[in-house]
């Protein structure tokens, strides 16, 4: 089990009902973790629509997660 720190933005923040949380998980990639979260919190976005950021930088959804990593899922952006 590792501890991960999550921050939520935009639609994910609203659907989760909070801005950040820490959790313990066996998920080894952002993609795996998202499937867990999606199921638990009924997120409407599919994994394929998201990008992942780990420790403040964009990364692949299939990267390996380490203990204490900060994970953010990036829904489709719409700036400007």
């Amino acid at each position: 089990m590792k501890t991960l720190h999550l921050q939520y933005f935009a639609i994910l923040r609203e659907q989760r009902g909070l801005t950040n949380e820490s959790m313990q998980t066996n998920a080894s990639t952002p993609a795996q973790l998202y499937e867990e979260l999606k199921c638990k919190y009924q997120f409407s976005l599919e994994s394929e629509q998201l990008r992942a950021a780990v420790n403040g930088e964009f990364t692949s959804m299939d990267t390996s997660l380490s203990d204490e990593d900060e994970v953010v899922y990036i829904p489709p952006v719409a700036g400007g």
Partner: protein
Amino acid sequence: MSEESFQLSEEVFIPKEQAKLLCDPAAGGYCAFEGWVRDHNEGRPVKSLEYEAYPELAIKEGSRIIKEAHKKFEVLGANCIHRTGHLQIGEIAVWVGATAKHREEAFAACRYIIDEVKSRVPIWKKEHYEDGNSGWVRCEHCAAHEHSH
């Protein structure tokens, strides 16, 4: 190039003050783009907009885009500032300014920056409609789709 070439602002900002930072006697052309909050989107009357950013990564990615513009085009200066928070119709959501010796490069850099910012920088837009509904742009269609099943 300043470290603060890409900024987020929770408050109304004055484009002219941003433009001043780009003054350069070698510059012959200055191109600016402003994104304004429109009163409608895809036929639906919009009352206001909310912008939410992931600040840490937005500033990193925005600054990378400005650096790319410097590499790709012969710009003398380029800046971008993006609002966050609740905006009313007519307010400036995003401002880009670029200067170059010649206008071609100023236009190209300005266009490049706004296109990349809109597609890459982690900023999200929630539309509040006249009818009381609201939705996250580019995220809600899927949501609606999910709920209808």
